[in-house]
């Protein structure tokens, strides 16, 4: 399994510690790693070449040789370059000064144009616009019907004067390639705009047929549609899973319809999405939206920085936070915050609440997978059984309300009763209580203003997401010796397969208790995070 670029670079640089500066051959090896990582992420070859060239220049410069940790510095450079190419900042739709705004969709077959039309219409409708969908895909079997269904789901009217291809199969033109159209999409598109003007719709979304990049005839037709309707935005829809063909395809479409923005489809899969980088870099057009599901609501504004992390397999903390925000309700969060600030004891009730919220966020595996640096313990993540959560919950549910708020009062007989009630052994209850005590300590430590050991570098995250100014300096870890801590954690990771026994370091909060917990602490350790990471989070 592919390990993340940062891990691989870290391995490359391991031997170089103490060298102070990088030789050219070191840099070359690094560049090879980067090249491989990008190719594995389906970034197109010319783009990779160009990209590695630029990274090499910077890596040979003073920036890296002066840095304390060259590996992190290089990852930071790569990340910055990626974000720069991907568009630096996100752009939203340009609306026409005089309605209607015309948006045209174009792309290969099966990239998700019709679905996107519905999503876009839904999004715009939510923003107070009155969109109209125009069915100009008269080629694909039943495309018009599909658009009507999509329109219905989005609650948006569809203009479909022609039924298009209702014969259920493609119809081939005489030349033997490409498909013939039923009716003229140019006429339909133009009529759609007229219709919108007459009925006062302020946004028109024209769904066109999918076409191959090499199909000159159809590409010319797309050009004619574009000329006829003079769209304010032409969106090129491309599948996030596309491989090396991305460049040729994007170039053909740029020439054919001169698109103004790109939409990435099917980003909810596990494709690393190197195509995004290829298209953005080759065409210079911004990526505007990412399609993340099949429902009409599943459209997101594109985030270049997240995409960069995804291409580099660095985890996706921001998405994690967004999911967390969705899962936790506001009053709960406020209450939690109050308790937290008042340094009140963390109780089992809070614990239950949070477990419920985590469950709402999805599987623990996917959550952990989103954390940076988790790539290296993917196997352990895969291996664990989420039902253990239920067993913990059962134990907590077997406690009386008094016990839940006063865990210290749980004596031997109470423990025996809890164990009986939840069908576990007393020693499991003991373990739970012990760790819970540690958790309380950790929370208090946090509330006093110290950072979690192994969790610095994270302040400013929230701010970063909202694009606000970064919060104050709190990055410094208070815990005595992070390096030692990390070393301990690594040792724990080595023991990971063995049972934890009593080896838990008492000083380390929680995480480093059981073996795998130690891994997680390590994964969040500042020295393990690439340097650039805080930076892009904090901006």
């Amino acid at each position, binding site marked *: 399994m592919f390990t993340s670029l940062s891990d691989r670079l870290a391995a490359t640089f391991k031997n170089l510690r103490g060298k102070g500066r990088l030789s050219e051959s070191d840099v070359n090896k690094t560049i090879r790693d980067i090249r491989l990582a990008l190719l594995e992420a389906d970034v197109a070859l010319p783009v990779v070449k160009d990209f590695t060239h630029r990274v090499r220049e910077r890596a040979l410069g003073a920036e890296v040789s002066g840095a304390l940790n060259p590996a992190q510095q290089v990852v930071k450079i790569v990340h910055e370059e990626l974000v720069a190419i991907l568009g630096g900042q996100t752009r939203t739709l340009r609306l026409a000064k005089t309605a209607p705004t015309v948006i045209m969709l174009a792309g290969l077959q099966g990239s998700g144009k019709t679905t996107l039309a519905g999503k876009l219409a839904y999004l715009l409708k939510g923003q107070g616009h009155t969109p109209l969908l125009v069915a100009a895909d008269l080629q694909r079997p039943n495309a018009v019907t599909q658009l009507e269904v999509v329109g219905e789901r989005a609650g948006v009217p569809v203009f479909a004067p022609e039924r298009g291809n209702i014969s259920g199969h493609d119809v081939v033109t005489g030349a033997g390639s490409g498909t013939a159209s039923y009716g003229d999409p140019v006429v339909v598109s133009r009529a759609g705009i007229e219709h919108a003007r007459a009925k006062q719709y302020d946004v028109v979304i024209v769904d066109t047929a999918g076409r191959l990049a090499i199909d000159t005839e159809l590409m010319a037709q797309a050009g004619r549609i574009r000329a006829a309707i003079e769209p304010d935005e032409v969106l090129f829809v491309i599948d996030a899973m596309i491989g090396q063909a991305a460049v040729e395809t994007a170039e053909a479409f740029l020439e054919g319809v001169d698109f103004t923005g790109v939409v990435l489809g099917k980003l909810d899969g*596990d494709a690393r999405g190197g195509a995004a980088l290829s298209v953005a870099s080759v065409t210079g057009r911004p990526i505007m939206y990412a399609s993340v599901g099949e429902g009409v609501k599943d459209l997101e504004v594109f985030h270049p920085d997240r995409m960069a992390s995804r291409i580099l397999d660095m985890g996706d903390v921001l998405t994690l936070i967004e999911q967390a925000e969705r899962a936790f309700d506001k009053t709960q969060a406020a209450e939690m915050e109050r308790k937290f600030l008042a340094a009140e004891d963390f109780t089992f009730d809070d614990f239950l609440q949070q477990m419920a919220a985590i469950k709402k966020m999805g599987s623990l595996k996917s959550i952990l997978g989103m954390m940076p640096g988790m790539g290296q313990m993917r196997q352990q993540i895969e291996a664990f059984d989420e039902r253990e959560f239920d067993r913990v919950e059962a134990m907590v549910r077997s406690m009386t309300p008094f016990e839940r708020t006063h865990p210290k009062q749980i004596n031997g007989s109470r423990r025996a009763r809890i164990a009986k009630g939840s069908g576990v052994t007393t020693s499991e209850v003991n373990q739970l209580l012990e760790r819970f005590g540690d958790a309380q300590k950790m929370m208090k430590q946090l509330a006093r203003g110290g950072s979690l050991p192994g969790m610095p570098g994270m302040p400013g995250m929230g701010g970063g997401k909202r694009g606000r100014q970064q919060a104050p300096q709190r990055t410094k870890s208070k815990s005595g010796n992070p390096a030692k801590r990390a070393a301990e954690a690594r040792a724990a990771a080595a023991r990971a397969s063995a049972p934890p026994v009593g080896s838990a370091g008492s000083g380390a909060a929680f995480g480093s208790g059981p073996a795998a917990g130690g891994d997680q602490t390590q994964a969040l350790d500042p020295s393990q995070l690439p340097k650039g990471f805080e930076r892009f989070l904090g901006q």
Partner: protein
Amino acid sequence: MGFIDTLWEWVAVIVGIVVVGGGLVLGLMRGRGGRSATLPRTGDTGGIPDASEVRPSDRPGGIDTLPRPDATDIAEAEPDAGVVDAPPASAPTIERPEAPAGRLQRLRARLARSNSVLGKGLLALLAGGRLDEATWEEVEETLIGADLGVEASTQVVDALRARVAAAGSTDEATMRGWLRAELLALVDPSMDRSIADSRVDGRPACILVVGVNGVGKTTTVGKLARVLVAQDKDVVLGAADTFRAAAADQLQTWGERVGVPTIRSDRDGADPAAVAFDAVSAAAEFEADVVLIDTAGRLHTKVGLMDELGKVKRVIEKKSPIDEVLLVLDATTGQNGLRQAAAFTEAVEVTGIVLTKLDGTAKGGIVVAVQREVGVPVKLIGLGEGPDDLAPFDPVAFVDALVD
């Protein structure tokens, strides 16, 4: 500032809790050894997909595994006299599709068009005379550019280098021969690429077609039905794509053209497993040779949908074993194709791959990686939008089209 501060703090708490949870869970699990394995699998949170992954239409009665809760109308083959009067190539009567044997020959030009850059480029490089480091790098890059993946590309280049070093000759004919041999080795002609297309043990062969969204599953099923009809097989189609609007209609039209019945649900959002079961039952009743089941597109990462697919398979197997599971891959797919193949293989044991849209700019090199890593052979390739543009994959002809 205060707000950001606190916001951040509670985010830290959440992350902390996740770590805590993970720690607890892992700790307990390890502590308890393998005990969890013996527990009955009921009401687990891990296995059950969260709501967002379940398509809305599945929710009512989605767990119901009883066969056929709803009436299905069996669309008998009827000539359907000219309802559609489309200008080109309308088919009022049952067509006689082209036999598959000579198809690849006819489509060779198209394959060569899509792949000419690869073959010609490689030969030009190799036969250019001087083979220095830069040339080899270019060769490797040309291969990578075909989505072959880094590993396979490096392997080919290394093998070629070894041959050149051993023989010392670099004239064009020799190089062509070597390149052909290496590429052939890459696509592995020894794999079994036959399709289960005739009755097995006195029951119809059962073919399930799966894949992610937008790769052309329904079209492939339609075209495959034509291939089978051309071989004088009795075919039944099952429209188990109950999710996408009008997918069943599309399949039915494909069937009607060649006089093949389509089993479908009369409403959208029916249980796909039930439809599949009905299709297999109907095929047994009609004493058909093959039953082809089309499923809805699903991303391989959606646990809920993959579970649904697993259910379709289980329910079909109550009636008849599945002889063939075809995974449809879009030729433009990059390295993600590997993960798709792995995920679908895990869920439903894929036995063959159909590579579609090979007539575009894509080279479809990902299948090489899939064959290598997942061990599933490419069985069919789609080379155009015409109804008879699906051909059996022939490694030798494929490589010849590349190199000539």
